[in-house]
């Protein structure tokens, strides 16, 4: 359902932008998006205010990943997102109501997700793979091409879709690395002469079709970016 995917794209974009403005690290932002996606696997879309769910996801993720955020900051950043150049909110009943709704929504989400809000993210795996690959590549090739940064960006961007729920963390990590290398046309040395492809060294049960699936999903996400204003 492309319509649904578009809606979620917009809201996860909000989560990611708000995350940056709140100074969140990549992993807490990933947790927030994962919570958001998981919630709407269980729950009907129409019953809830998507952006409220998003804000609560951010709040919850901050707690889970030990990068605690204040509801005041989440409210401020979100309010400004929807009302650009507006004055900061006053400490009135409306403010307290907004805060209450975030906290209530958080509790609801925890119950829907059966309190399972801690995830194994691809990020840690990706970083280890990058270090290993760095030692295998010629150091000048490595310095010339921003493979690490690109792979990291691809991984971050992947949370606009629900890839985190459909694929294993290690597989996602390898796939974004694969794509980053492809994007820059970098060949892993002696790839042709190897008995085992480099990506299978990192993850035994990974197959080429899985990589292709992930890459095609990623490209679809970027395609959505061009369609949505």
């Amino acid at each position, binding site marked *: 359902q492309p319509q649904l995917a578009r809606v979620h794209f917009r809201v996860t974009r909000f989560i990611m932008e708000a995350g940056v403005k709140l100074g969140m690290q990549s992993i807490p932002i990933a947790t927030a998006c994962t919570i958001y996606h998981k919630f709407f696997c269980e729950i009907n879309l129409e019953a809830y205010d998507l952006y409220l769910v998003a804000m609560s996801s951010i709040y919850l993720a901050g707690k889970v990943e030990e990068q605690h955020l204040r509801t005041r900051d989440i409210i401020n*950043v979100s309010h400004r997102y929807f009302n650009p150049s507006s004055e900061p909110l006053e400490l009135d009943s409306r403010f307290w109501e907004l805060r209450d709704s975030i906290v209530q929504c958080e509790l609801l989400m925890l119950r829907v997700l059966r309190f399972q809000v801690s995830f194994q993210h691809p990020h840690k795996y990706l*970083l280890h793979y990058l270090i290993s690959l760095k030692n295998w590549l010629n150091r000048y090739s490595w310095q010339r091409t921003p493979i690490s940064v690109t792979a990291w*960006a691809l991984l971050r961007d992947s949370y606009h879709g629900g890839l985190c729920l459909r694929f294993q963390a290690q597989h996602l990590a390898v796939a974004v690395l694969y794509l980053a290398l492809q994007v820059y046309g970098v060949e892993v040395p002696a790839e042709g002469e190897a008995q085992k492809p480099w990506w299978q060294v990192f993850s035994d049960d990974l197959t080429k079709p899985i990589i292709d699936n992930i890459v095609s999903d990623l490209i679809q996400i970027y395609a959505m970016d061009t369609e949505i204003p």
Partner: protein
Amino acid sequence: MEIPSMDRRELFFRDIERGDIVIGRISSIREFGFFMVLICLGSGIMRDISHLEITALCPLRDVPSHSNHGDPLSYYQTGDIIRAGIKDIDRYHEKLAVSLCSSSLPPHLSGIKLGVITSEELPLYYRRSVELNSNSLESYENIMESSLGFVNPGVVEFLLEKLGIDETNPPSLMRGLQSKNFSEEDFASALRKKQSASWALKCVKIGVDYFKVGRHVDAMNEYNKALEIDKQNVEALVARGALYATKGSLNKAIEDFELALENCPTHRNARKYLCQTLVERGGQLEEEEKFLNAESYYKKALALDETFKEAEEALQKLHKYMQVILYFLLEIECCVN
């Protein structure tokens, strides 16, 4: 990846650079130096090369002597594990010359000890590689996941830094998420600051209204509330200072005014009230006959506002008084003598 040795050798000789650290075992010792079979690399590109049977020569002149007499080479034995720096590379003929002198290393590695090392000092990645090769049931994934470093909560931050990825300007390939396009004013900290100032101001206004009808305790509460919300709020500081001054706590008033003026040097009222209070305090000190102290207060007030007449007058009056006293003292001294 199970790549043939020939290709790995080729890649090794392509990628190695002068100044890289290598670790190997002495295979034979001659009069002109010793040969060592390379095991792994210790810097730059970290690779296990033990199966490639690469030999390097360490010439006599690159072996530092351990005693004043005798052959430097006598210190070494076949089978010793050696850490050395690459001095010369002949990529075409696949020949390597190494050195045990720290001058062969680049500046950022110069602290690393060259020479004989123990097997405990072999790099961690090499020891893991041996584990991987010796046990066909092991995998990269297993070794990684069971390593202590993997479960360390700080590992992500550490590796991000090692790879040069910056989380404060997070990268993205989406057009809309280029963080350099985000305005600083939309960030949480900027919004919070603006909001705190606005909330604090509201409290100050309420406080001033209380002050005007004489409800000083309530006013003080409001000012303190405001300063709790926004510690350096100028209006709150000035208002509270004025309240302190009214109640007679001149020193506290001066503190508040000075802080306010520090944050906003152009604040007219802060400057005005500060001058007035300094002079008033000076007057109190004069009464207590602490003349030099009083003088410094008057001078301070004048330094802030040279047109402040009251300060000028007070200072002159004090100086005259001090002259008179001095005169009397001299008189008495003359009479005594």
